[in-house]
């Protein structure tokens, strides 16, 4: 088994879950994950040494997800977001509610919240997102506050 195959088998599920939480759409997630691993494969093929493949994959995935979220935001009209919101409140689906709350965040804040839910340390979050280590706590408390406000707005019982 080659080094790439080992890393692929070890990290595929984690990377897929990460992208799924951020992007949501299954097909888009599969594309993103495949692109990340193709980039990684080509990096190895060019003879580049990657000392921490896990970190590299996290960073590459978050960057691709940010690009995707920015593209989505560009094409998503305000009206369609309102329709989606109305549709979801009827379903009272918890997963859908958090998804909606996350969709109101800036791409970087969304990534931060997702990485936090993965149980990453501040140091790992900083390495994966490029946010300054000293700013992670501040940005995180602000992001959690925004999510809480969104829940309250949707009359969602948090506790």
């Amino acid at each position, binding site marked *: 088994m080659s080094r*790439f*195959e080992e890393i*692929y*088998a070890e990290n*595929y*599920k984690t990377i*897929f*879950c990460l992208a*799924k*939480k951020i992007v*949501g759409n*299954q097909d888009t997630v*599969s594309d993103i994950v495949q692109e990340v*691993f*193709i980039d990684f*494969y080509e990096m190895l093929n060019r003879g580049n040494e990657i000392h921490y493949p896990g970190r590299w994959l996290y960073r590459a995935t978050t960057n691709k997800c940010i690009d995707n979220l920015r593209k989505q935001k560009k094409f998503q009209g305000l009206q369609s977001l309102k329709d989606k919101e109305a549709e979801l409140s009827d379903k009272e689906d*918890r*997963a859908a*509610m*958090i*998804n909606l709350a*996350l969709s109101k965040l800036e791409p970087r804040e969304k990534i931060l*919240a*997702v990485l*936090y*839910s993965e*149980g990453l*340390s*501040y140091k790992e979050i900083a390495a994966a997102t490029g946010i300054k280590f000293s700013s*992670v*706590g*501040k940005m*995180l*408390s*602000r992001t*959690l*506050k925004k*999510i*809480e406000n969104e829940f309250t707005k949707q009359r969602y019982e*948090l*506790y």
Partner: protein
Amino acid sequence: MSCIKDHLIQKYIDGEASSNEVLFVEGHITHCERCAAKIEHQRKLSNRVKREINLLSVPQAQIPEFVIVRGPRKHFISTGRIVYYAAAACLLLFIIVFYHTREEEKINEVTMISDYASDVDANRPVSQQELSIYIIDQHGNYAEYFVQ
């Protein structure tokens, strides 16, 4: 004493605060109920958000086989590049033709150099000056003539 800032509360509950910060927070909450309540609220919020976000992940049962499909590479040459290549070819052609012509001229050329053998005497007519002529033919043969 000032109350604990939100970002420090976050660092404290995530175990990311330094030992000095931990001492400050724990000392402060012994006499500030408001901050103690804020910490508890933030801890619950963090745990709840983590749990809710984790609802979004669907465990992927199977890892798909990694296959790189590479189609035949298309050799696309832009118009700019074609112009560049044509210009380079023209320049090369010009250089080859120019040097070739010069080479031909050299082969058929007979060089004649005339000079006065001694100092010119201004009081004598040109026909009476000692003139030397050097002739170099196309094969590089050298001949010297003196005219008196």
